[in-house]
C-alpha cells in the first residue's frame, strides 16, 4: 500500500482538518465530529441539506458543501457509513425551523444510520425528510443493499436539491425535486484496477493485467461481468447503452452527462470516453444540455469511470445552472 498518509486509522480526521484549512472562510468543522458544514449554518428560513457517507469518495461529500449545494456533509470511516449520532449532530446544527433534508446513497449502512438519525431528530421535534439515491443500473440488488446502489448521480441530487433549498423552498418542495432527480438519473461504472482501504492495507480485489470489471460499485463491490479490457469506444457504448435501456428517452430530450473518474484514471481518458458518449446520444437524437467530466464520486485510487445521464425538464435545468459555491462544483 503506497499512500500519502500518517496513520491509516486516522485518515478521515486528518483529511477533514486539511479540508477546513483549505476553505476556512466557507466551511467549518462541527466540534468533536467529522462533520463539515457551511460556516454560516444554520441559515434562517432555509431547509438544511445534509448528505454524507463513508469516506474515500472525495470530493464527495464535503466538497459539495457550499452555498447552493449542501449545508453539511457527515463523513464516516473509509467506505463505512457514519453513525446515527453524527448524522443527528448535523441535523441539529442545520435546523433553522424549516426542516432538514437528507440525501442518502442506497447502501444498507447509509440507509440504516441516516434513518436512525432521522428517528432521533424527529423525536426531538425536528422535521426531517429524505431521498435515497439509487442510480446504478448495474445491479438490481447487490450484496449489501436492497435495491440499486447510489453512485455518481448523487452529485446531481446535491446540486439540484441544493439550488432548490437555496431558493427558499419548503421541505416538501425540496423533497419533490430531489425525488424527480432520482427518478430521472441513471449511472453505470467500470473499473480497471482495485483500490486499497488504508486500514486494510491490501487491495479489495484483483484484476488481471488485461481484465476490466463492468458494473462495479464505488467500494469495489462486484459488478456484472469481468472481461478482457476493451477500447474506450466499446466501454462508452456498453455503459451508455445500459443506462439508456433503463430509462425512457425520446428524441429531443435534454440530458446532463457526467463522465466521472473513479480515482486514478487520467482526465485524458475521461475526455476520450466523453467523445463517444456524445456521439451515441447524438445518434439517438438526445440533446446534451450540459456535460461534466472529472472526478465527482471516486473510489480511492481505483482506475475506472462511470457514465451518468440525467433527463432534464425546465425546472431541473434552471436548478442545475443555478449558482453554487461548493468548492468541488463551482457554478
Amino acid at each position, binding site marked *: 500500500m503506497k499512500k500519502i498518509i500518517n496513520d491509516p486509522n486516522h485518515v478521515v480526521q486528518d483529511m477533514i482538518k486539511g479540508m477546513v484549512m483549505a476553505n476556512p472562510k466557507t466551511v467549518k468543522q462541527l466540534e468533536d465530529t467529522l462533520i463539515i458544514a457551511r460556516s454560516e449554518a444554520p441559515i434562517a428560513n432555509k431547509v438544511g441539506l445534509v448528505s454524507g457517507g*463513508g469516506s474515500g469518495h472525495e470530493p464527495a461529500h464535503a466538497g459539495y458543501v457550499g452555498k447552493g449545494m449542501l449545508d453539511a456533509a457527515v463523513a464516516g*470511516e473509509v467506505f*463505512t457509513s457514519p453513525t446515527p*449520532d453524527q448524522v443527528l449532530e448535523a441535523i441539529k446544527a442545520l435546523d433553522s425551523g424549516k426542516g432538514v433534508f437528507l440525501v442518502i446513497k442506497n447502501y444498507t449502512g447509509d440507509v440504516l444510520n441516516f434513518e436512525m438519525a432521522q428517528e432521533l431528530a424527529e423525536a426531538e421535534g425536528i422535521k426531517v425528510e429524505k431521498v435515497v439515491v439509487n442510480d446504478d443500473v448495474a445491479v438490481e*440488488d447487490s*450484496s449489501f443493499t*436492497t435495491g440499486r446502489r447510489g453512485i455518481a448521480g448523487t452529485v446531481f441530487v446535491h446540486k439540484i436539491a441544493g439550488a432548490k433549498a437555496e431558493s427558499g423552498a419548503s421541505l416538501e418542495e425540496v423533497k419533490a425535486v430531489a425525488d424527480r432527480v432520482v427518478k430521472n438519473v441513471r449511472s453505470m461504472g467500470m473499473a480497471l484496477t482495485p483500490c486499497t*482501504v488504508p486500514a*486494510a492495507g491490501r487491495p479489495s480485489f484483483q484484476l488481471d493485467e488485461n481484465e476490466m470489471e463492468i458494473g462495479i460499485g464505488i467500494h469495489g463491490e462486484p459488478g456484472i461481468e469481468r472481461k478482457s479490457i476493451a477500447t474506450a469506444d466499446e466501454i462508452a457504448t456498453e455503459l451508455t447503452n445500459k443506462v439508456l435501456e433503463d430509462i425512457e428517452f425520446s428524441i429531443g430530450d435534454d440530458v446532463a452527462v457526467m463522465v466521472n473518474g473513479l480515482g486514478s484514471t487520467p482526465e485524458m481518458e475521461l475526455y476520450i470516453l466523453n467523445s463517444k458518449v456524445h456521439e451515441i446520444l447524438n445518434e439517438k437524437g438526445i440533446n446534451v444540455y450540459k456535460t461534466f467530466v472529472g472526478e465527482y464520486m471516486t473510489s480511492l485510487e481505483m482506475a475506472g469511470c462511470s457514465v451518468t445521464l440525467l433527463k432534464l425538464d425546465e425546472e431541473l435545468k434552471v436548478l442545475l445552472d443555478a449558482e453554487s459555491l461548493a468548492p468541488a462544483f463551482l457554478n
Partner: protein
Amino acid sequence: MELQVKDIIQWFELTNEKIQANKDYLTSLDQPIGDGDHGINMARGFKEVVNKISTQDYENVADVLKDVAMTLMSKVGGASGPIFGTAFLKLSIAVKGSDSLNFETFTKGLEEAVNGVKQRGKATEGEKTMIDVWSPVVDYLKSEKDFQGDQIRKTAKQAMENTKEIMATKGRASYFKEKSIGHIDPGAASSFYIFEALAEVIKGGN
C-alpha cells in the same frame, strides 16, 4: 446458571479479544462480497465497547447491554453498527429489571434481538447475513432448558459455515448469486465470535 453483570462484561471482553485477533480475517471475508471493512469496523467498535464497560460500575445486566449497544451504534458505522447495536439494544430492553439473566430470560431476549434486527434491516433468514447465525442460535436455545456452552458454540459455528452455501435469492441477479457462493458472510463470522465468547463465559461459569 445465571449470567451476572461480571459474566456479561467478560462476554464482551472475550468477544473483543476474538474480534481483534481476527480483524484481518473478517476484513478479508468482506473483500470478495462486500467492501472490505468489516474487520476494521468491528475491531474499532468492540475496542470502544470494552473501554466503556470496563470502567463503569453496573447494577444490572441491562445497563451493560445498553452501553454495549450504544457504543456499537456510535462507533462502528456501516451496516453492522446499527445491526449489532439494535441486537444488543433489544436484548437490553427485553431483560430490563433483572440483575442477572437466567436461561429463559436470555433466550427470550435474544429472540427479541433477532426480531429487532429483522425489522431494522428489512432482512430475514436465508439472505446471507448475521441473521443466519443469530436465528439458528435462538432456535437451538428454544429447544433447550439451560445454558450449554459447547452446544451454543457448535450451533453458531455450523450456522456460520452454512452461510457459505447460501446464495442470494429473491431479487438478486444471477451473476451475483454465483459470486456470493463459497464465501462466509462477514457478519456471520463476527456473530460466531460473539457466541463463541458467550460459550466460554458459560463454560467458565458452570
